[in-house]
């Protein structure tokens, strides 16, 4: 049996694909920035913050890391309205992504902070720096330099995992694929093309992250 590939049947939907592609890219960029901000705050709280904050952040991290992303997404989109928080598909998708990456990056960044030699902290203390000054000027940059590759991998993982947001009809690349194949019934071609697009996205993201790394850490 032979199957005749007919990519031409995708052409009428190029704008749908483009829309999905852009959505996924923006979702990735925003959740990367938001997730790293949350992760930095979480890691700083666990290592340099008040003691009472630690179990709270630890609970957040463990809950997120030990439950499926799709369940987190459904909870935010379908569950929260019961508590009076009603979010659009798009807002729920962005929030779930930030919350998810925030938890993973908290742990990654914390590992980086803890890898900073104790002697550096003592040297900074001896120079009369405050804990916040030490965190900001001595610890964080070193920590990020150490864990940057791990963080970059996590960003790629989260980007590919973002396909799940199509399940709440957030209009990402996978949503576009589902939409198109439900119209033209060319599942093989559609998912082949979309898989290729994800592959290209991942390769491009890696290259961009490597470039950013070179700029921020010129001597890494």
């Amino acid at each position: 049996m032979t199957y005749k590939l007919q990519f031409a049947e995708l052409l009428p939907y190029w704008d749908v694909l483009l829309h999905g592609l852009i959505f996924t890219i923006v979702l990735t960029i925003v959740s990367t920035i938001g997730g790293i901000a949350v992760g930095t705050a979480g890691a700083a709280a666990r290592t340099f913050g008040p003691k009472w904050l630690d179990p709270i952040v630890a609970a957040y991290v463990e809950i997120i890391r030990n439950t499926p992303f799709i369940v987190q997404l459904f909870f935010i989109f379908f569950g929260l309205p019961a508590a009076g928080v009603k979010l659009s598909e798009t807002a729920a998708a962005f929030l779930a992504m930030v919350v998810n990456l925030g938890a993973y990056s908290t742990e990654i960044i914390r590992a980086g902070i803890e890898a900073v030699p104790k002697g550096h902290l003592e040297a900074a203390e001896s120079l009369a720096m405050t804990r916040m000054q030490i965190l900001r000027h001595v610890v964080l940059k070193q920590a990020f330099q150490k864990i940057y590759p791990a963080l970059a991998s996590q960003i790629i993982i989260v980007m590919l995992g973002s396909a799940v947001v199509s399940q709440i009809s957030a209009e990402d690349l996978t949503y576009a694929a589902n939409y198109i194949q439900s119209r033209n019934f060319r599942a093989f071609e559609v998912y082949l093309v979309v898989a290729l697009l994800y592959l290209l996205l991942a390769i491009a993201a890696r290259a961009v992250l490597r470039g950013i790394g070179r700029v921020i850490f010129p001597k890494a």
Partner: protein
Amino acid sequence: MSLVSIKDVRKSFGSVEVLKGVSIEVGRGDVVAIIGKSGSGKSTLLRCINGLETYDAGCISVDGIDVGKTRGNLRDLRRNVGMVFQQFNLFPHLTAAENVMLAPKVVNRESAHITKALAKETLAKVGLSDKADSYPSQLSGGQQQRVAIARALAMRPNVLLCDEITSALDPELVSEVLRVVERLASDGMTLILVTHEMRFARDVGTKLVFMHQGKVHEEGPPKPLFASPGTPELAQFIGMQH
């Protein structure tokens, strides 16, 4: 009045008493060399002086500030007390000059103009004017330690604490660091040094402190003490170093 006054200081880690009533007076411009066997409490004592370690009893004061009662203004104390470590502890993500400028900039909020001048002046003092833009990983151990000294000096401390600052260095790099310290001493800097360099302790020190089992076992002017130790422990310790 003493610049640094240490009176009957005691310190335990758990049930082990590491400092058992230590008293030392350090005047302005003194160069105090602390020697003693490993585990005799030298580092612990030094770290108590700038509050890196707390002590359980007794009193330490620097320039009239009681270290034990500082709480909030431990930072005021540390502005006046510099410290140089065995492991250099330079910040690896900053250049030599940036290492030197960091504390003046963020702690003392000096202008960029002043911090640059400070970096220039202190790096020149340690003979590293040409290495201002090098990262620590690009410097030899001796050069890194000299940058660490410059970094401490940039805060214009009244007293500089040095904990075995040549012990991590290759033998051929020791003298370049000791020369810098000697210069500081002759410029009138008050220094408290824990050291294994006996010749340096004898020739540059104005006061020798021999610690033994958590106590000051002997102290006095270095040359006479080295020539004729008053106790068998010091005699044995000095003998061991050769």
